[in-house]
């Protein structure tokens, strides 16, 4: 049991006849015997219990079993049925190592009295409570608030529509009373019986079990109101077959914010299956989008937007939605130059479940062997593969890479570029303020010289151009952070003699800070890979490239397009 799994779900009502705990799942009284044995590992038997305040009574919770067994029904009912003032807002109570998350709701008395004035017992408020471990994160708790709010809202609506809660409560109370009236030796716990009789109880059980199993809840309260919920912590730790990776929604959120049009989307579940499980009233745009993704897997979002006839921002939102629900992941679209490497968190153990799954999909192959191929950076299509292998084999390789990506066993490497001229004297990035003033002074000097004596000091045409460019050097960009010595060095490179190359190089300079990978530069500057590679080759003396994994948790790694200084757009080159 992971930390964010619920311990229990409870239904408490309070009304004219006092508070009652109507339903509880799972049934701890019956399960207690073996759970006690399983979980009775004490932290330290000899630990001194620090004497608490004199007034504190010893707590009723058996705190190390992780269950609710220490609470009596009456205590729970009393604790969890709140005063009307607290209704309609999140309810969060911590007792020792358990945390009670609810959303108490007041029922509208006026409407009830008109329709059902004769009923002697009236429910004033009710509270559905998830019991969690106290150690869970606030973000998990917020997610549970969402779920509980949805459930409560649905039940309240159904109550006002057809007295759903009252009817269900009646069933539960009668079962409770029946059992209480039985002689003591025949007494058993009422919750199992309630589940067979009451649909609300079954719904609550489903909610509890599906959160615990899958992290996703999809049910109809009273076969009418839809409740859908996803616990991203659970969903994402499940979806990666990798060894346990802790994912929290903040990271997912940041990844989503870092979406770019050149990214592709990879479904983690069967597309048709996903379409079938979609809610009936979901937006048709989502249907369209998923259909496009099924037909043309791993295209860039830009192309998907065109194909599905949706705006890019809409595609972004829908894809974020899919990612949040653990149905899809973001990858760079498959292309032959992509380089993949074994992910450090991947599970390469023999005979694991995932290995069997792999063999079923790709008979005659072994997961461990295929993974060992990715021990070294591997291109999607090696040139040798292109020549030797048949079309069919290539297709198999692609589908294998897709499968490995889906299961988080491999990740893509990207090439980043750093600008660093080989000069002994200094470190590469200057203090921002000093360099700024330096450059402005250089600028003013330069332009004065230039305008006062246009050509007298400059002998050759080439150096003249260089000086001219320096006059218009972008101040906030990477170039400006270099010293004059370095600028000189770069402009004296043989490659810089070609004005077109130099122009392109200067245009790309802001990307050469290790925050932007090849694919991103290509996309933003509308270049082909070969153009970029040729340029980098020409200026290789001042550049360092590095092949690393994209930083997942940091949005800047995906990099926004660097903000250009306005002056930068007006680099003028006279020829």
């Amino acid at each position, binding site marked *: 049991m992971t930390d964010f799994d619920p311990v229990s779900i409870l239904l408490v009502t309070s009304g004219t006849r006092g508070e009652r705990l109507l339903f509880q799942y799972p049934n701890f009284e019956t399960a207690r015997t073996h759970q006690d044995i399983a979980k009775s590992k004490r932290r330290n038997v000899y630990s001194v219990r620090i004497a608490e305040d004199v007034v504190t009574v010893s707590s009723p919770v058996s705190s190390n079993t992780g269950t609710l067994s220490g609470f009596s029904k009456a205590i729970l009912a009393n604790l969890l049925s709140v005063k009307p003032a607290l209704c309609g807002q999140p309810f969060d109570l911590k007792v020792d190592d358990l945390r009670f998350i609810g959303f108490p709701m007041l029922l509208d008395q006026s409407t009830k009295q008109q329709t059902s004035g004769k009923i002697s017992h009236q429910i004033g408020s009710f509270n559905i409570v998830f019991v969690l471990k106290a150690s869970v994160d606030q973000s998990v708790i917020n997610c549970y608030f969402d779920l509980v709010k949805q459930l409560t809202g649905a039940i309240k609506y159904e109550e006002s529509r057809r007295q759903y809660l009252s009817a269900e409560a009646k069933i539960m109370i009668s079962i409770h009373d029946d059992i209480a009236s039985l002689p003591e030796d025949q007494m058993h716990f009422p919750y199992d019986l309630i589940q067979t009789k009451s649909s609300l109880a079954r719904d609550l059980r489903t909610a509890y079990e599906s959160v615990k199993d899958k992290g996703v809840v999809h049910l109809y309260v009273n076969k009418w109101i839809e409740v859908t919920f996803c616990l991203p912590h659970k969903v994402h730790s499940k979806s990666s077959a990798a060894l346990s990776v802790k994912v929290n929604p903040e990271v997912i959120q940041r990844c989503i914010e870092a979406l770019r049009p050149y990214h592709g989307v990879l479904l983690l579940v069967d597309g048709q299956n996903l379409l079938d499980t979609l809610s009936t009233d979901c937006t048709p745009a989502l249907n369209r989008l998923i259909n496009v993704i099924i037909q043309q897997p791993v295209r860039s979002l830009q192309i998907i937007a065109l194909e599905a006839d949706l705006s890019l921002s809409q595609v972004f939102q829908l894809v974020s939605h899919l990612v949040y629900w653990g149905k899809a992941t973001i990858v760079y679209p498959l292309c032959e130059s992509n380089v993949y490497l074994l992910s450090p968190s991947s599970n390469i153990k023999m005979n694991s479940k995932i290995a069997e799954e792999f063999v079923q999909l790709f008979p005659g192959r072994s997961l461990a062997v295929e993974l060992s191929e990715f021990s070294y950076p591997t291109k999607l299509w090696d040139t040798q593969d292109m020549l030797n292998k048949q079309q069919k084999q290539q297709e198999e390789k692609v589908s294998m890479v897709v499968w490995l990506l889906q299961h988080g066993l491999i990740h893509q490497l990207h090439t980043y570029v750093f600008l660093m001229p080989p000069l002994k004297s200094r*470190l590469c990035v200057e203090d921002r303020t000093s360099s700024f003033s330096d450059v402005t002074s250089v600028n003013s000097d330069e332009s004065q010289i230039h305008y006062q004596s246009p050509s007298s000091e400059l002998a050759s045409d080439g150096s003249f151009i260089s000086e001219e460019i320096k006059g218009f050097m972008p101040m906030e960009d990477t170039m400006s952070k270099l010293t004059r010595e370095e600028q000189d060095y770069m402009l004296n490179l043989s490659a810089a003699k070609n004005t077109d190359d130099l122009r392109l190089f200067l245009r790309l300079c802001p990307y050469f800070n290790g925050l932007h990978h090849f694919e991103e530069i290509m996309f933003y500057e509308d270049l082909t890979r070969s153009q970029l590679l040729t340029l980098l080759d020409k200026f290789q003396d001042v550049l360092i490239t590095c092949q690393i994994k994209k930083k997942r948790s940091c949005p800047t790694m995906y990099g926004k397009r660097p903000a250009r200084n306005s002056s930068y757009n007006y680099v003028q080159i006279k020829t």
Partner: protein
Amino acid sequence: MSCVIESENEALSQEHNRENILQFLGTLMHQLNKYGYCSIRMGESCTVHLKVAPKIYDPPPVQDQDVPVFLKEKQNLKLGHWDLTTQQILSYIDGFKHVAKIAGEADVEINLVKSCLQNLVHYQVIKVIPIFQYCNVYTSRPDIQTLYTNKRLQEECIKFVAKKGSLQPPNFRDIFLIYCSLGPGVTVKDICARFNPHALKIDERKLIQFGLMKGLLRRLQKYPIKFPGDVMTSVKLQQLYPWFNGRHSYDEICSKTGLSHQDLEEKIETDPSIVISWK
């Protein structure tokens, strides 16, 4: 606590003290939320000290083959601060010796050494890094970008990786170039052959050490995996088969079986039914 305050100030029973109580509770909540602790003065002799204890997890256990490295300057450490066993160990930590060796040299039982080191890891005095070997493979992590932008880190790096005895500090570009050249399939030996770090006034062992300490580098471990298949091999290798299930790295197998890295490598190479994954 409330009893004391009550008996001293009649805080609850006196009507005019109500406001103080409200204010007290407000400050209490505010300070606990903001700082995690509070000290609020209540009357003459009573101050309420409260603290929310953070949840502390044990650092992962230290392995035989791990190497402890100081995170701070060794001179700044107060020796008397630590227990006797730790004091005995501290002087043997030089950033290159692994745990088993330290235990041997300091003549302390190895499990004691491990728990002492684990304790030091908790106090962030040391960090454990994998042992340095020339056949090791490292790869740069995305954090390498911080080395490009962070000037202070650059200066620290230059100072740290400089070869002992050389007068001039190494060139930062060379250091950065070596970091960027590290990657899957490139051993430290290859790097040394390509760049000759000694000529560049760089101590390659320190270079790797710095990268690991600052999280710029990640060690790629080698995992042998045995496949079912009948290959005639030596009995000695067959005894090792239980290790080859993808859970144990070379380092671990070596330290547990007492084989040297090279021996293991040679043995495994003779058996075609073993594949090797790096991760």
